């Protein structure tokens, strides 16, 4: 199937600073594609390039198999960096401009998207009178206008309260269920882990990894073990065969094994034979956060 977005060797510099160094990846149709990276890693720069706000120094990108153009952008609902609206206009007037430029939606649809982001009651208020969270909601409404097949969200939960964050997370999941392709940059790893099917991790302008969440995260199984005698448990498990790395975390011992090799009954039997009774034995996937720090730390 044709990828929705394809980047090939995108490079961008700001003077001596290289913001992107030959970034290439593809976003498959129907994916919720998370772009991760520390501050200054090039996430927003990359999204700005694919939306023609910034010019790449070299490389190319294509939307739906075609070079980026006004026509392709009209098919994409986008929220880039900050909510950008005319301060003296109301939500409805601002979305009328979005509609007039993009051709997405109509007046009934403006009411629909404002209802989704819970701004119906304040739809006639001026943008300048909105709180930070309301501005962000309006930007999301603007992206949703016309129910586009592809959405680009740059830090979509910025400025939202916990309820708002949960609502947007649900909204993104709902959009994904309906087959929308969502490209989302975030530094909230928990956020990405909960909703994304694919991730790309950027570090200082270099793409470190990209792919399906399970592939990116599933390099290791972590076996968590605990007993009344943690020191003895740690010393004993050091002789257990097959792990790649072991460490003591308080009263718990974490043993890292290659994906699919963690057999809890073997660990249990091994400890039992050494006279150690376990009070905790579990296997967990490495969290995105752990993976992220592992990949992005020097």
């Amino acid at each position, binding site marked *: 199937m044709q990828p929705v977005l394809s980047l090939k060797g995108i490079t961008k510099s700001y003077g001596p600073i290289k913001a992107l160094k030959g970034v290439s990846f593809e976003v498959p149709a129907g994916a919720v594609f998370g772009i991760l990276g520390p501050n200054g890693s090039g996430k927003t720069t990359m999204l*700005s390039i694919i*939306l*023609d*706000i*910034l*010019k790449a120094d070299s490389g190319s990108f294509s939307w739906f198999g075609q070079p980026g*153009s*006004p*026509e392709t*952008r*009209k098919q994409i609902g*986008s929220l*880039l960096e*900050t909510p*950008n*609206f*005319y*301060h*003296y*206009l109301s939500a409805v*007037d601002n979305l*009328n*401009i*979005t509609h*007039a*430029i*993009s*051709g997405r939606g109509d007046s009934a649809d403006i009411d629909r998207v404002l209802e989704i982001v819970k701004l119906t009651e304040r739809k006639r208020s001026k943008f300048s009178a909105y709180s930070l969270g309301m501005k962000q909601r309006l930007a999301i409404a*603007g992206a949703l206008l016309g129910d586009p097949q592809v959405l680009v969200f740059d830090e979509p939960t910025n400025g939202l309260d916990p309820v708002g964050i949960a609502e947007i997370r649900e909204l993104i999941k709902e959009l994904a269920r309906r087959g929308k392709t969502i490209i989302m940059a975030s530094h909230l790893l928990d956020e990405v882990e909960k909703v994304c099917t694919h991730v790309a991790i950027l570090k200082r302008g270099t793409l470190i990894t990209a792919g399906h969440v399970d592939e990116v995260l599933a390099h290791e199984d972590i076996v968590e073990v605990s007993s009344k005698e943690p020191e003895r448990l740690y010393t004993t498990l050091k002789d257990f065969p097959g792990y790649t790395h072991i460490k003591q975390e308080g009263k718990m011992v974490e043993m890292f094994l290659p994906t699919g090799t963690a057999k809890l009954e073997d660990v249990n039997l091994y400890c039992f034979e050494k006279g150690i009774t376990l009070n905790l034995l579990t296997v967990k996937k490495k969290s995105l956060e752990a993976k992220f720090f592992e990949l992005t730390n020097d």
Partner: protein
Amino acid sequence: MFALIKIEWLKIKKYPAFWWMLGIVALTYPGINSISYYGYTKATSGKEIANNIAKMLLGNPFAFPETWHSVAYFSSFFILLPAILVIMLVTNEYTFRTHRQNVIDGWSRPQFITSKLFDVLIVSIIVTLVYVIVAAGFGIYADSSSTGQWASQLQYIPLFLLQVFSQLSIVFLLGYLIKKAFIALGIFLFYYLIVENIAVAYAQFKLKDIGRFLPFEVSDRLIPRPAFFSRFGKDAKVSYDHALGLIPEHVIYTLILTTGIWLICYAVHKKRDL
């Protein structure tokens, strides 16, 4: 094209500064011309010999057809009012970052500049309409017997429009390149009110009038001083006729300058990061 105008109208129609500017222009243009008219009537209405001489020298600059010329000349001093609006219209886009959003939503970069060109054109047309109404009003009021000559000197209407559009285009370029409203406005006022006036005056006496090629002066020469200035001696007459003779030349210079300004905007916007 109409879609762009419609979208710009959506942006402008609820912008308070636009209506304030329109209101102020609608008051200022009649105001400045009324002051001039008052001065004229004061000088010519008495029965003294001096009054009669003044009347003979001045004619009636506010009667048809001279009103088109006189009102255009006096009104042109107040270009700074619509200039403030033009600076706001372009720098607002940077402040609100809507210059990015418009492109994200599906405009091409040239479409953004074209939309701003329409803004400047719309403001120029509105200002010209106010000028036409004021000039016609004075023509009828000052000497109703002159109305038969209303169709003479109508060339000052397109000349005024061209002057306003050209000068507002320079202002737009400043706002577009500087991005900050107050800095752009400060530079504009300092240059327009002080630097260029001094440079033009200096060049007139020392540099063979090369100052006429300065950005605002190029189009200022489209509307020379009113005809009564030519009645104060032979030199004044020669100077006035010379200024009239230069108008066609300055129409060409103004068109070249204005076209150049917009081409620069298109070229810069095509390449620069937004």
